[in-house]
């Protein structure tokens, strides 16, 4: 499909890249975002990635809407040339169940599985980070098995600890910081997805894949300690090939 360009208020353009949320659409959105930011076209500001769209802010004192759309269309033509960075796979250690994942059994029961089967199914795929948003560092992950789909809690929790990993309908996600929420919690990672004390506060980027690695409580404690002292190095590998589409 041809991209669709629409005004979003008087300082942004919403570029609809596709009507589907899939990995190819995501690669196109990341390419366009990279072009807008790297070409440093004067008058363009920041970009926000969505499932099917890229929101591009612009300065109306420098560009009219028509001029901004013209520039975006010329970038659209250059997109095939964009080399996306090599795809990273980031290992997310996670303790499943117990006090760290109080809803593990409910998720198992809802899907007629054992808790161990939930753990095996949840920790098998590499999940694509479509984009980050909602709260700082919160990844929108794609690729969870339909076998684990479970409705949200009817009564959301007032406070969920940072690092909690949950399921909401067909999605899985990680809460970077303590917040309220209605996702079914199945486990918790000791990693900090958002750490404002670091030069780069964000562990993940759009286009990364995450792979959950089951660990035991004792290992959880020792990683928490390493994260706190700054000794922890995340385990990152490169996915086969590059992200060129």
């Amino acid at each position: 499909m041809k991209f669709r360009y629409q005004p979003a208020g008087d300082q942004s353009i919403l570029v609809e890249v596709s009507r589907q949320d899939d990995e190819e659409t995501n690669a196109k959105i990341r390419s366009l975002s990279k072009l807008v930011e790297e070409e440093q076209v004067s008058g363009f500001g920041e970009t926000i990635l969505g499932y099917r769209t890229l929101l591009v802010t612009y300065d109306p004192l420098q560009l009219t809407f028509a001029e901004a759309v013209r520039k975006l269309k010329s970038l659209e033509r250059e997109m095939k040339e964009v080399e996306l960075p090599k795809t990273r796979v980031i290992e997310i250690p996670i303790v499943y169940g117990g006090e760290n994942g109080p809803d593990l059994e409910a998720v198992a029961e809802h899907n007629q599985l054992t808790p161990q089967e939930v753990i095996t199914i949840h920790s098998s795929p590499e999940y694509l980070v479509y984009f980050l948003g909602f709260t700082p560092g919160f990844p929108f992950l794609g690729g969870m098995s339909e076998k684990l789909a479970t409705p949200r809690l009817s009564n959301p929790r007032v406070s969920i600890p940072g690092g909690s990993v949950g399921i909401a309908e067909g999605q899985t996600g990680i809460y970077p910081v303590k917040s309220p929420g209605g996702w079914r919690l199945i486990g918790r990672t000791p990693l900090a997805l958002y750490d404002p004390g670091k030069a780069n506060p964000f562990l993940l980027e759009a286009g990364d894949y995450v792979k959950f690695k089951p660990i035991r409580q004792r290992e959880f404690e020792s990683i928490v300690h390493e994260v706190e002292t700054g000794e922890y190095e995340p385990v990152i590998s490169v996915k086969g090939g590059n992200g060129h589409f």
Partner: protein
Amino acid sequence: MAIFEVIHPGIFTTIQDLGRKGYQKYGLAVSGAADHYACRMANLLVANPDKSAVLEVTLFGLKLKARTPAVIAITGGDLTPTVNEKPVPMWTSINVSEGDVIHLKGTRSGCRAYLAAAGGIDVPIFLGSRSTDTVGKVGGIEGRSLKKGDVLNIGTPSADARSGRRLSTSLIPEYPKEVDVRVILGPQADAFTSKGMETFLSSDYKVSTKLDRMACRLEGLEVEHVDSADIASEGNFLGAVQIPKNGLPIVFNVGRRSVGGYTKIAGVITVDLPKLAQVKPGDTVRFHQVELSDAHRWLREQERTFKILQSALRGG
């Protein structure tokens, strides 16, 4: 260097500038002053650069003690400012002396006042901005609102800073209890029935008590969707008017989340955003459709005014 001490923080006072740009794609809000116009005018009156940090004071209660002399200006909502219990003019640069107590007693009009000090409030810059983000817990002082006992250091004033600068009355906004704001329709205008669109553009909406820097939530007639209120999550923009399933508009401000999954019927134009930053619970909001080219023309006119005032400042 000037120093202020917080005697009483008020209900919600934060350090803000024009925002932290470029990190929304990581989920970090832009933050910054909710009312850019009043914030920029406050800085201008004390001869600060546009991006200097100021205090954003909500509704009432802030009490500061000057530990040194300083030049300040208070703009935005009229929160009844006094110095040593004597009323002081707003939209005017004034001198305060060592030991003076600045008090913003409570709102007579508007919701947020801006207090600029010549030299700007000096807190560390995080990712390009001093703005406080209480969700991301960054900027300002430890990413939080002010508390009693906080000490505010002020930077070095410009050579042009002096008291007695007064903004022309024609440039001082009023903050009535009923506001008319202009919008550009879209990006999901086609998710609404024609009846829904008519409701949106012809109804009086009341500002709910759930009002914060993230959004202004409205109550009134429900705006009818064609079928669904849900969309695939996408970037959220300043001034976006979102209508979730309950049909009631939510207008997003500087503290908004970076993405959202509900239909947006329209976007409030930039020059009208300050009006929404100054409404209070119970006030009335009405929406009017305008053309994008007009919105851009009004913005250019406003920028021209800022340019003229900035050059007048340097001229004396």
